[in-house]
């Protein structure tokens, strides 16, 4: 095996394009991931056209809430780009300068103040179906946050108006003349009046009015809590059932490294074995010079070694942008080693089926690309039966197990790394056996 390994390293070293790819690929991917994660805008860039007159307010009882507060709440959810007119906003959306535009119309305060109509905003967006979906999701989320903030302002104003009704005072803004008595003050006053009344129908009427005033004061007090509940009926409290929460950025790193590991390893192993056939050397080797098992092991280990080095370099490169715990580097090595050997076994199984390098490369690419997508489909995104099929397919190929092993190694995510490593070892044996059967076709 030593001489075959030396020969393959010599050939690999003379394939300048391949060497350049092996060096540049991890560097490029590491930089791309790093920049994408460290410089990605956390908020969408949105053009905002505020057509409301300056100082416009929404009247809530005796209180007034400035419409500009709504705009500010919206600005805090997006990267706002203030533009003067709707036409400017449309132009910026068309040019791609902004993801979308939000137009706040001049009549929004009148509609909200009416108490019978909802205020309406116009959202302008562009792009293909995917971009539209993204924009709808991003803007919908931003508007929901802004609505929530504005709703809190209105609740606050409404609560102040209720307080005024309960305590009494100057209710001129509600159209009441002069200083009025508060609802809470009415029952004790009536009690005193009733105490001086002789029993009879008049006293009964006064007692009924007193009971109503007491009931009204108590319930109007409660209505402030009701307003709060109506404004945000459900609050979310999150509980994670399994494992540690994996930050999205480090999970993105794990996915990128796993994908690179798989592509490089499978392509190298499949291409390496197919090259022996393409050069017509396989028959010469297998007539007693090298055993089939040794040949397969040599190709798988060479591919695994190269892709392991590339993947580890990627992790090291990405760690310049994303905080990775180098204290877990031993686990990274384990996950990458088991993953790369399993991918190597898959690669030689593909190489054993193909007669030439191009066919092997195409087959490897066609087989591995869908595995990435299948492994990343979350439960609940598709129907239960289809998800079971996807899970079964993902289980019999090494990508998902390698991804889980690396996620566990880098992020401490569930399932445990041990289970994933055992899974990868099993798949290595299965694909190794398939490759061995594939080589029998020479007979």
């Amino acid at each position: 095996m030593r001489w075959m390994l030396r020969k393959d390293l010599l050939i690999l070293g003379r394939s300048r394009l391949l060497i350049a790819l092996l060096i540049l690929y991890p560097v490029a991917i590491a930089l791309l991931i790093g920049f994408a994660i460290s410089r990605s805008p956390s908020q969408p860039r949105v053009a905002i056209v505020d057509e409301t007159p300056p100082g416009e307010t929404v009247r809530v009882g005796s209180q007034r809430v400035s419409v500009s507060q709504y705009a500010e709440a919206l600005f805090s959810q997006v990267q706002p780009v203030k533009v003067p007119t709707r036409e400017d906003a449309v132009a910026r959306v068309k040019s791609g300068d902004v993801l979308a535009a939000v137009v706040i119309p001049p009549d929004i305060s009148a509609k909200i103040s009416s108490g019978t109509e909802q205020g309406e905003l116009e959202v302008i967006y562009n792009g293909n179906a995917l971009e539209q979906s993204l924009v709808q999701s991003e803007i919908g989320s931003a508007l929901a946050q802004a609505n929530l903030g504005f709703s809190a302002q209105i609740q606050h104003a409404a609560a102040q108006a209720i307080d005024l009704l309960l305590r009494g005072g100057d209710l001129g803004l509600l159209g009441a003349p002069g200083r009025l008595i508060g609802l809470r003050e009415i029952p004790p006053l009536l009690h005193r009046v009733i105490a001086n009344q002789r029993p009879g129908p008049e006293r009964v009427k006064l007692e009924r009015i007193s009971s109503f005033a007491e009931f009204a004061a108590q319930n109007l007090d409660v209505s402030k809590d009701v307003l709060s509940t109506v404004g945000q009926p459900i609050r979310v409290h999150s509980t994670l059932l399994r494992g540690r929460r994996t930050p999205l950025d480090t999970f993105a790193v794990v996915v990128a490294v796993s994908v690179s590991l798989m592509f490089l390893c499978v392509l190298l192993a499949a291409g390496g074995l197919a090259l022996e056939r393409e050069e017509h050397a396989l028959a010469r080797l297998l007539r007693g010079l090298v055993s089939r098992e040794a040949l397969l092991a040599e190709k798988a280990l060479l591919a695994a070694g190269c892709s392991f080095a590339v993947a580890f370099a990627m992790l090291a490169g990405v760690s310049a942008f994303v905080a990775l715990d180098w204290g877990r580097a031993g686990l990274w090595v384990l996950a990458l080693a088991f993953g790369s050997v399993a991918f190597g076994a898959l690669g030689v199984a593909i190489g054993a089926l193909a007669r030439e390098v191009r066919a092997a490369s195409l087959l490897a690419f066609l087989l591995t690309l869908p595995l990435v997508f299948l492994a990343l489909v979350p439960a609940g995104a598709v129907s239960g039966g289809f998800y079971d099929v996807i899970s079964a397919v993902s289980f019999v190929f090494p990508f998902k197990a390698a991804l889980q092993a690396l996620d566990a190694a880098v992020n401490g995510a569930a399932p445990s790394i041990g289970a994933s490593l055992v899974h990868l070892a099993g798949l290595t044996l299965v694909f190794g056996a398939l490759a061995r059967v594939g080589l029998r076709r020479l007979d």
Partner: protein
Amino acid sequence: MSPVLSVRAVSKRYGELEALKNVSFDVDAGGLVAIIGPNGAGKTTLLSIIVGTQTPSAGSIELNVGEVGSRVGWAPQSPALYSKLSVAENLELFAHLEGLPDARAAVERMLDQTGLRERASERVGRLSGGNRQRVNVALGLIGDPPVLALDEPSAALDPAQRDRLWSFIAGLAEAGRTVVFSTHNVAEAQRNADRVIVLAEGEIVFDGTPSSLLAKGGEDDAGDLERALVSFLAQLSDSDALSR
């Protein structure tokens, strides 16, 4: 003199197709044996079984050289070479894989023997077809095998390259090496072989000298072996038809 190579009742089946039927012959040391016959006669299958890249359905191959681990040297029709390695690197790799105690010395010997010393450091992918075939034969010889099997050794070579290759092969036989080769080119067999085995439909239908095949085909000693072979096969076909 005991034969160096014995083919004993070899048959090969591919499903329903019987590619070789009970083929037996012996080859003595220093022999230069041509295996000829029409397309599909089983020439390549027979050579593949002799060199060990295929296993027979029945029968056996015996190499009577008294050395454990000896195998027939092989130069396949399509040169089995690594195009990104140099001539010397290809030779050295296979010398190591053959388990030779002094791989470097074997490489030097083969470079001298095949006249490839000047091309030793040149990558095989840049060699001419003739030189590639010489490297291909050199790889077959690197383990110093008692018998060398060549499958269509001159296919895809121009006349000058063919001439040089056959001079080289003749030199091997003169030095005592047994050479068995298959060829479509009957004229080459007539010029270079001292024995001709004719295969037809998986069976040996003739085994003798080129002169005796000429005689069987109704040609004199200076006649055309190809014409004689065609005539001989036609006679066989007629007698088969009569026997049915």
